[in-house]
């Protein structure tokens, strides 16, 4: 199922759409904010894969990060909801229409503080959804308070140091049921783009925690979520390559060096070893890698965990194939005989 695109006057993707069709309104976030780079990667990933934007539904909570869905995929429905409760919003919409491609964007405050409960329950349910945490260690929109992902010892601009241990959203997601868990850095264009594409191809919950520096409140010396710190301490687990389902797999996979994982839609994720040998299907290995990295102050990036066989929440509900939202009356209102039967029992 491969499509060859003859060079048109304007550059379009495999379904004939220009990149403009994947853009949103102009960003109102600060220049240099990591969240803006993530928005750009989202545009690229969906454009390059040729996803029909109107099949996507965007969800977010409240925060600078949660504003960003307005700045990409303008032809997708979007729902900027309430603080910390985007997981329930995404879940509800996916229940109504299981054919949607769900894309959630949230912040570290949104997810790891007010929303930690909903986050964990979404994880536990393995709701089919791409869930991007734009993680800057602070509350950007309320002007720079610590979030629950701030590292011990990391300081605010005022010099105040955080003394409480951080929540590692990847570790939480790994432990309790997400089927795709990754960490990345807003400054790592290539890796983030591939991770997004792989998440689109994945069927269950894909949690991507993206370190996304807040240039206004958390980019100074002493912060462990600054551009400089992350650049210095990023440890990529592997090099990634993505082969979409509509392209022939041409190159032989070299033994031992590269793992090839077939994703739900037939795309392939190629995971090339750099340094250590890391098996992303091994949950325990991923958890201990995260522990070690934290101890060393490293930011471990790449695919931490992938499980392509676990059923999603929607599958467990044994629903009809079609979206519930548009089932006709004849299928959702039982006949008069059914009511009669119940009434007879109650006589």
């Amino acid at each position, binding site marked *: 199922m491969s499509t060859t695109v003859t060079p048109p006057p304007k550059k379009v993707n495999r379904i004939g759409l220009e990149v403009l069709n994947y853009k949103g309104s102009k960003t109102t976030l600060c220049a240099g904010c990591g969240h803006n780079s993530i928005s750009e990667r989202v545009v690229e990933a969906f454009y390059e894969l040729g996803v029909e934007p109107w099949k996507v539904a965007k969800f977010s909570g409240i925060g600078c990060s949660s504003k960003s869905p307005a700045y990409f995929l303008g*032809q997708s429905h979007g729902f900027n909801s309430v603080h910390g409760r985007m997981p329930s919003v995404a879940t509800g919409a996916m*229940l*109504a229409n299981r054919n949607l491609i769900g894309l959630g964007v949230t912040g570290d405050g949104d997810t790891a503080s007010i929303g930690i409960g909903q986050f964990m329950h979404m994880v536990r349910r393995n709701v089919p959804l791409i869930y991007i945490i734009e993680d800057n260690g602070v509350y950007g929109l309320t002007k720079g308070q610590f979030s629950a992902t701030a590292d011990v010892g990391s300081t605010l601009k005022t010099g105040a140091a955080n003394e409480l241990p951080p929540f590692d959203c990847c570790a939480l997601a790994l432990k309790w049921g997400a089927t795709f868990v990754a960490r990345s850095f807003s400054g790592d264009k290539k890796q983030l783009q591939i991770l997004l594409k792989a998440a689109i191809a994945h069927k269950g919950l894909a949690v991507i925690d993206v370190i996304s520096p807040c240039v206004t409140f958390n980019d100074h010396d002493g912060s462990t979520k600054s551009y400089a710190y992350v650049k210095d301490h990023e440890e990529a687990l592997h090099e990634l390559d993505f082969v979409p389902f509509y392209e022939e797999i041409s190159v032989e996979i070299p033994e031992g060096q590269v793992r090839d994982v077939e994703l739900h839609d037939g795309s392939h994720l190629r995971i090339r070893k750099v340094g250590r040998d890391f098996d992303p299907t091994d949950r325990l290995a991923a958890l201990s890698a995260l522990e070690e990295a934290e101890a060393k102050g490293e930011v471990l990036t790449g695919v931490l965990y992938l499980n392509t066989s676990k059923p999603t929440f929607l599958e467990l*509900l044994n629903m009809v194939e079609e979206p519930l939202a548009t089932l006709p009356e004849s299928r959702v209102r039982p006949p008069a005989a059914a009511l009669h039967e119940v009434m007879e029992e109650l006589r």
Partner: protein
Amino acid sequence: MSTLEVSPLESSSGRPGEPVINDFSIQVATVNGSGSQTANSVLLRALFQMGIPVSGKNMFPSNIAGLPTWFTIRASKDGYIARRKEIDFLVAMNPETAREDVLKLDSGAAVVYDEPLGLKELRSDVHFYPVPFDKLVAPVCPDAKLRKLVRNMIYDGVVAWLLSIEMPEVRKALVKQFGKRKAKAAELNWGAAQAGFDWAARTLTKTDPYIAERMNATAGKVIIDGNSACALGAMFAGVTVVTWYPITPSSSLVESLMGYMKRFRHDPETGKATYAIVQAEDELASIGMALSAGWAGARAMTSTSGPGISLMSEFIGLGYYAELPAVIFDVERVGPSTGLPTRTAQGDLLKNAILSHGDTRHPMLFPSSPGECFSMTGEAFDLAEKFQTPVFVMTDLDLGMNNWMADPFPYPERPIERGKVLTAEDLNRLGGFARYEDVDGDGVGYRTLPGTNHPGAAYFTRGSGHNQKAQYTEREDDYVNNVDRLADKFETIRKHVPRPVVELNPKATIGLVAAGSSDYAVRESADQLRREYDTETSYLRLRAYPFTQELTDFIRRHEKVYVVDQNRDGQLVALMRLEFEAELIARLCSVRYYGGLPLDARTVTDEVVRQEGL
């Protein structure tokens, strides 16, 4: 059948020596978890099957086992099915409360009790029937472990003999209660009921005046609780997404819905469900899921009680501003936390009307019977989708969890109304749309569903800061225009909510107004006022908020209007005071009951009498 020897002892309800037929209340006092529910339901059903109007009220504690519980059955030839304060016939099975229960009785009442409790000495003006339950249960129930449960059926037999309840009807009720699959248990219990009956016939001499006599006032009727009726209403309204978090007294609504949906809402060929029911992690999540499912086009609902509503508050405000349809069942109970969670109240009226922050207003429907629970649930779904807004169905523990007589529900006549939703074809024809534009002059915009196969279908949903095209704005005029349109929309809703039931009495200068489960007590109170105080009243039963012109007219027609509230501060009357001009407000009087029990007529009557100086 028993031969009746009516004693000269004075009774409260009849003249000495005269039997009181089909007009009494039975109270069974037991311990929570002792399995008396079945025995009580059997008594209720047996009376019902004899054609006598009945109601059953379960007064239970917030506890799984051990605390006292009372079940009251009222039989009324006149069809009064509100709670009656006075107990005529007590079955005292709970040693903890027996003394107090007996001392509270009016003179002339009857008491069936467990012999060892020795209640006879307490007073001489009631009829005592001591029963040796332990002695009677042993021979009919060899398994000692089951005796605690089976014992209850013995009082059914004794009461049946004393009240002349027909034993074949007891048997029929029992078989129905246990169902075909539990035939053995039914037989065991039937044995116990018979043993009680036979023993009573052999041993007792009836001295009280209360008698059940076959009549024909329940033919064709069903017995159902309001929660099950709402559940059926939702299923036949075509609900597709149901989210909830367990809380008394609303849990049984979704639990019975699960049962019905399993039977009637799976594709016959594939066995797949045409719905999703999700037990959420809390009410913050259940409302988020429901509103978003509504946003994405499902017929969505959630069900809760006051504490859950409090948690839902922010989201429901968003639902109002972002214009998201969902039906929210609020089965009201008394206050927060451990604030009498198993007792009834109508205490969420004021809060729900304006729930959340900012300028919010929400429609509420007030069913007063299982029939209306069924039909108004359907209306609630249509209203929610037609007006793209959260809609409350307000019931309470009394209506939701107690058993009520009802006419069988008629199958919904009208097709489901799904409101203004544009499809891809519509968009092709129109060339575009502005989500929040008031195209039709009714305050209601057109929406599209996510996943609509059209590049122009998308819009961005957010809270209060949006213009007609759903673009972000913080401009003063955009905000004001939008909330003014929402106010217009609320006026349109006012024209479409269920109208009140108005019963004008040309002779009356005073009117009574009530909503929901208060209906029965208020109607009975009107009869008491006429009979005992020669005072005529008109009656208006509200069926929805926002209020409609009928209410204004009603208040205008009467010098005084008594608004009946099941809460301390008069929330229903307060809502009226928010809307009406001073001249009408001056006519409003408030009758309030907030003790946690189902409202009774005497409470209403006494208060009206006091305020009227009758």
